[in-house]
């Protein structure tokens, strides 16, 4: 893997020089602020009543029970029907998105604003003879009467599972909207880049978006596809390029905290699952005789071991894309969780004085996450290329 590491470090250098020209961490002001805020917090904790904890929406500072960030964080990294922008004077402001449901009687559509920001199952939407509730960002057929918590769903006492039925749901949720926006962005980026190449006469050097993207395109083609797939790499370059830029751009969009960013798209298991399935299908459809013989009848090992290896290798067909799915999902979700946890520190410590620490640590993690966006896109693409390369490998290596 030495060659790939070198390849990535080269890519990392390129990316760092392109994006981060400032060396934040070497700046002494950074450490000064960190030190200052830490000492202030210690002081604040010691002095107690003198510094009033700051009242913020959603923080139960009045209650005795401490603030639990888990629910908020989980809500932020999960999908939702509306696209929440911010709170204004106690009211949520969100972009309404279409809800599309297939019921037994056919298609039902309405806007997510019909739920009035409710995701506790308390507000019933009555439309076309149906009653729907949004319970933890899932739509159920509403029960006729509310349960003990005021939600129109019935929760099983033993397993805590919801007993209400669900319609088939293909709503344009926050993640779907983000997906569509990102696709528009990607298409705009690369179609305008392609236009540059079509319009040029002769062989001029790349300009504009092409000058930024071309090294990356060439990197994917040479360092990822050519080095790992081998002779027939050309066929897979478009797929690998699409993977790389789709993952990378969506990772970056996920890091942008304000609309239209902030959706945890590549940290959603459904999205990574689709990507991994594409890898699985492409790898196995292109598998040659040598590839299948290595799976079902491994050459060069004793006959007694062959069936055992066949089982292991057969499971490997599924575990390889499964690992891709989990890796991307976990890395991106973890990044979001860390950022949100650091921000939650303000609410956990119940003082605004912790915010410099929160913000600086968030900045640090965000910078790291910028690297991770590209790293994960690179790893996903590289491993895809490796799997395809293994499927195409000729006999005798």
């Amino acid at each position, binding site marked *: 893997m030495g060659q790939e590491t070198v390849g990535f470090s080269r890519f990392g250098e390129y990316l760092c020089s392109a994006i981060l020209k400032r060396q934040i961490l070497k700046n002494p002001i950074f450490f000064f602020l960190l030190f200052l805020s830490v000492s202030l917090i210690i002081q604040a904790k010691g002095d107690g009543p003198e510094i009033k904890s700051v009242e913020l929406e959603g923080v139960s500072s009045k209650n005795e029970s401490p603030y639990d960030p888990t629910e908020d964080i989980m809500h932020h990294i999960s999908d939702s029907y509306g696209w929440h922008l911010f709170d204004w004077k106690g009211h949520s402001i969100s972009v309404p998105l279409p809800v*599309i449901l297939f019921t037994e009687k056919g298609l039902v559509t309405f806007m997510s604003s019909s739920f009035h920001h409710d995701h506790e199952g308390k507000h019933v939407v009555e439309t076309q003879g149906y009653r729907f509730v949004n319970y933890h960002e899932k739509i159920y057929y509403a029960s006729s009467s509310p349960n003990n918590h005021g939600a129109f769903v019935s929760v099983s006492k033993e397993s805590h599972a919801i007993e209400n039925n669900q319609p088939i749901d293909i709503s344009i949720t926050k993640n779907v909207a983000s997906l569509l926006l990102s696709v528009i962005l990607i298409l705009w980026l690369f179609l305008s880049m392609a236009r540059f190449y079509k319009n040029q006469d002769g062989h001029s050097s790349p300009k504009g978006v092409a000058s930024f993207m*071309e090294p990356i395109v060439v990197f994917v083609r040479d360092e990822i596809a050519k080095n790992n797939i081998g002779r027939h790499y050309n066929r897979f370059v478009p797929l690998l390029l699409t993977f790389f830029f789709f993952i990378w751009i969506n990772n970056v969009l996920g890091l942008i905290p304000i609309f239209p960013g902030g959706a945890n798209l590549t940290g959603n298991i459904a999205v990574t699952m689709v990507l991994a399935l594409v890898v699985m299908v492409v790898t196995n459809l292109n598998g040659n005789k040598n590839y299948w013989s290595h799976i079902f009848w491994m050459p060069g090992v004793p006959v007694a071991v062959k069936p055992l290896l066949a089982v292991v290798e057969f499971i490997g067909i599924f575990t390889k894309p499964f690992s891709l799915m989990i890796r991307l999902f976990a890395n991106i979700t973890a990044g979001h969780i860390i950022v949100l946890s650091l921000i939650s520190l303000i609410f956990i410590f119940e003082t605004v004085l912790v915010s410099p620490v929160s913000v600086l640590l968030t900045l640090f993690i965000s910078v790291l996450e910028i690297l991770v966006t590209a790293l994960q896109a690179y790893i996903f693409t590289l491993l895809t290329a490796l799997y395809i390369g293994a499927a195409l490998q000729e006999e005798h290596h």
Partner: protein
Amino acid sequence: MDIVTPGFGLLFWTTITFMFLLFVLSKFAWKPILNAVKEREEAIDGALEAAEKAKNDLMSLKSSNEDLLKEARAEREQILREAREIKENTISEAKELAKEEASKVLDSAREQINNEKLAAMTEVKNQAAKLAIDMAEKVLRSELKDPASQEKMVNRAMDEVKLN
């Protein structure tokens, strides 16, 4: 947990959207971009190759020029050497010939001188002999004018015969 359960709606939309993206990008973005990049790379490679070739051509031209010059110089050298040889040969031949001629002339001259000498000697001998005879005749005539001297003569001759 909800978070690790893929939702159907997002699966559905991601599949459609990703396939659409893959198709459109492959057809309208990656194809022209990759082709253009490849063409440019080939053009650059071609230009570099052509430059290298031109350089090599120039070098070979230069070296062939040098070869030509060297050859010409060698030829001149050869011609000069040959000329010198010819000159030397001619001179030595001429000398030889002259020497031969001269010796021939000398020989014949010597022979002629010899012949002339022999002839002269013979002539001188003949003349001397004639002179001697004439002298002898004259002496004899004067000696034998009277009978006494004739007698004396005969006696002296008789003495000489006795002595012998």
